[in-house]
Structures are given as structure tokens and as C-alpha cells.
């Protein structure tokens, strides 16, 4: 994999909003088949980084290379699932997922993917009739059905309960493997990051503070000793050393609170 050229490369990316420095220096290489999880505190610039990767936001300085070439404007390899879902209120669940689908063969999969996210019986509901978690799953289905080369997920499961979350993890993992996608997942949930990603990237003060490779085999079991060790290691990094005393205690809550 290392010999292959990365499909997307960020070089020395910096992003300011007015006076505010959000990203200072981000270098990241994304290879075909990668599953990268981005974690960090709220407001540290995770969504901004994803938007830069999708080509929705131009970096203040630095370079974005797609397949080795400098890129401006929308990144055509990428489909992003927005943090706030962004369903069209005037389209039912089915039609929301159908947005922008051009091929008949893809349209035939709409029902199937909605079943997979557990909404097979809600095809004709309006978004305003759905719960927050259901809306998120529609948005997730909409991003997944395009089978993009680069799948960008911005906290796709934030509003879900622990159980549905694990189901969605299985679904994402399955599709990622089957369709050989490259995925980047922003999450607040460190366990989620370790469960899915082959690399966890921690952002702190506008920089990548740590990149942790996760070499556990899929599907990953949370009771694996290495799993909890990695989760703790990452949490400690994010929280500074405040949690040192908890490190030995592996009875962490199943879902990391925000």
C-alpha cells in the first residue's frame, strides 16, 4: 500500500476564518482503501478539514492534491455526509436518497440501502416526521449509495443510541470492504474511531497531534485487550494527562460522551 500513490494528499494546509486560525498545519496522505478516523475536541476544525477535502472550502494556504494533481473546486471523487444531515424537507425519504442518482441500477438499490440502515418501512415519510437519528441514517444512506471513491462522514452517528450505532458500524464496515471505498470519518466517539479505522488522526490546536495506526483485524471486538488500550491511549492524548489515573480501568462507558 505504501508504494501506491496516495489518492488525496494534503500539504501544509492552513485555514483561517478572518482573524481566527482554525487549521495551522495539516499534512495528511490518504491511500486507496484507507479508513481514517478524525477525532478532536469540539471546534478544533474537524468539519473544516472535511470540507477542504470535499473541495467546499478553499484552504488559506497549502495544497490539496487529488491523484497527484493540484485541485481546486469540488472534489469529484468525494461525497460528504454533512454533520447536519441536510435532507430536503420537500422530498420523502426515498427521493432524498435518490438525489443526483443518474443510473437506473443505482436507483434500484435505494430500497435495499434504506433497509440496511433500518428505514425500509419509512420510504414515504417526510423528513419532518423522522427522529434526529433517523434523519442521520437517511443522510448516511444517501452518501453510501453513491459508492464514492472517497467517502467523507461528518459525525454520521452522533444522534444514535449505542445499539443502533453498532449496527451502523457493521454496515459501514461491510460497504467499505465490499465496495473498496476510501473513507474518512469524523467522530467524537473514540471507540467508534478504533472500531472502524485503520488510522486514527487526532487534531489539536490546528495540527495533527498524533496518528495512531490500528492494526486489529476486522470485525473488531471491543473486549480485545488491545482495543481498550488504544482507546485509552487516544483519550489520554486528547485530554492531556488528566486521565492518567483512569488508564488502568478498562470499564469505560460504552459511548463516549461529548
Amino acid at each position, binding site marked *: 500500500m505504501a508504494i501506491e500513490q496516495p489518492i488525496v494528499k494534503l500539504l501544509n494546509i492552513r485555514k483561517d476564518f478572518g482573524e481566527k486560525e482554525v487549521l495551522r498545519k495539516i499534512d495528511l496522505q490518504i491511500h486507496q482503501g484507507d479508513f481514517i478516523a478524525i477525532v478532536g475536541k469540539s471546534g478544533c476544525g474537524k468539519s473544516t478539514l472535511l470540507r477542504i477535502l*470535499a473541495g*467546499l472550502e478553499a484552504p488559506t494556504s497549502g495544497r490539496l492534491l487529488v491523484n497527484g494533481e493540484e485541485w481546486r473546486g*469540488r472534489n469529484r471523487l*468525494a*461525497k*460528504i455526509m*454533512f454533520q*447536519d444531515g*441536510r435532507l*430536503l*424537507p*420537500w*422530498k*420523502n425519504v426515498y427521493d432524498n436518497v435518490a*438525489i*443526483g442518482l443518474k443510473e437506473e441500477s443505482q436507483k434500484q438499490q435505494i430500497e435495499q440501502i434504506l433497509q440496511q440502515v433500518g428505514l425500509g418501512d419509512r420510504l414515504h415519510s*417526510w*423528513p*419532518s*416526521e423522522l427522529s434526529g437519528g433517523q434523519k442521520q441514517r437517511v443522510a448516511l444512506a*444517501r452518501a453510501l449509495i*453513491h459508492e464514492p471513491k472517497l467517502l467523507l462522514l461528518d459525525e454520521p452517528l452522533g444522534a444514535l443510541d449505542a445499539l443502533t450505532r453498532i449496527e451502523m458500524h457493521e454496515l459501514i464496515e461491510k460497504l467499505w470492504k465490499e465496495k473498496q471505498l476510501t473513507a474518512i470519518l469524523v467522530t467524537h466517539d473514540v471507540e467508534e474511531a478504533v472500531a472502524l479505522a485503520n488510522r486514527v488522526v487526532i487534531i489539536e490546536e490546528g495540527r495533527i497531534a498524533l496518528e495512531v495506526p490500528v492494526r486489529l483485524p476486522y470485525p473488531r471486538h471491543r473486549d480485545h485487550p488491545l482495543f481498550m488500550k488504544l482507546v485509552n491511549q487516544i483519550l489520554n492524548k486528547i485530554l492531556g494527562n488528566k486521565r492518567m489515573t483512569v488508564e488502568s480501568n478498562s470499564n469505560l462507558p460504552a459511548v463516549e460522551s461529548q
Partner: protein
Amino acid sequence: MKWKTKILPWVIPIGLLLTWQVSASIGILSTRVLPNPLDIVSAATNLTKSGQLPADVWTSTKRAFVGFLIGGGLGFLLGLVNGISKISEKLLDSSIQMIRNIPHLALLPIVILWFGIGEEAKLFLVALGTFFPIYLNTYHGIRSVDPSLIEMAYVYELKGFSLFWHVIFPAALPSILVGVRFALGITWVTLIVAETIAADSGIGYMAMNAREFMQLDVVVLSILLYALLGKLSDMIAKIAEKRLIKWHPSHQNE
């Protein structure tokens, strides 16, 4: 329980009607002030038999419809163009906003000078009156489409007409429909004024004619007809709204 809630809103109108009829027949209410309800009904039947009433109602409805279509159509198109194109907006919007400040009914004298009392005068005024609410609401509706939805559409590769049809237009529709209902109200007010002052047919003309011959029942009938037509067009607009924006939370669980 259910029939009670259905009947309750009708109690006061029916009570009033009865009081009116009774006080007119026992002479408390002079028929010079208000004709009694039964007289109005018989005036309506007579005029319907003679064919005058259907003809006048048809004339007025046609004027309302055609004037609304011209004014509303133009307002919609310009609102659309100015909502979408910055250049056209810069060129046209401030001029339109300036003209908007002239109350269209104040133009009545000059409109009579231009067109006489023919059809054009009425159509012109109705079109002018309906243009602005529909223009403004269309323009505003398109301008206030949630940019995050446009961005989403951009990611999912909607462009040109499909972007307009799937995202911009439905987003602006509730606002446009508010303009339509507003414009319908203006349509009838404009017609009432224009037909009463300058017309040789239509409901307003019928009323003014009857006034000269002291036919109070016909005058009141005309007023009721206007009220009825106004209510009717509002109901149609409401039904259209319910169907067109049935996704809107305010139209669910009804």
C-alpha cells in the same frame, strides 16, 4: 361531541341572519337601510333568471382571473430572474421597489384617461396590483433558500434546471404561495374599486346601476357576491397550498 364542534361556529351567523329577517319583517329595521334577507334571495333568483347575474359574475371573474394571471405571471417571472441572477437584480430591483411605493389604485384616474372604461383599464389595474406581492414573495423566497441545501445539492451534482426544480423552487414555494394569497385579496379589492367607478359590466357595475334605481337588495347582493368570490378564491388557494406543500410540518397530521 363531534357534531357540536361542527355546529358551534354556525350558531352566531345563523342567529344574526334570523334576527335580521325578523326585525326587518316586524318593521324595526327599515328596508331603506337594509333589505331583508328574503328580498335579497328573491332579487338573486330574478337576476339569475334574467341572466344578468351570471353574466356579471362571469365578467368579473374573468377580469380577476386574467388580470391576476398577467400580473402574477410577470411578477413570478421577474421574481425568479432577479432571485437567481445578480445582474438582473442590480438592474431591475431598485426600480421595481420604487414603483411599488405608488398605490396602484391611485392610478385610477390616469388609467381611465388612458384606457377609458374598457376591459384594459381593469386588467391593467389588477395586473399592477397583483404583480408586486407575487414579485416580492418569489424574489424573497428564492433569495432565502437555505445555502446549506444548495451546497448539499452541489455535492450531489445537481446543476442548472434540476437544481432549480429539486431545490430552489420547492424551497421558495411556501413564500410564493403567501404572495399568491395576498395577491388574490388585492385582485378583488382592485376590481371592486375599478368596477364601481369605471365599468359598463360586472358586479360593481350591477351595484352602481342598482343604486341609481334605489334597488337596495341588489346593492347588498353585489356586496355579498364579492365577499363570496373572494372567499372562494382564497379557499382554492388554500387547497392548492395544501397539495403543493404537503411536506410542510404545518400540513401534516391533518
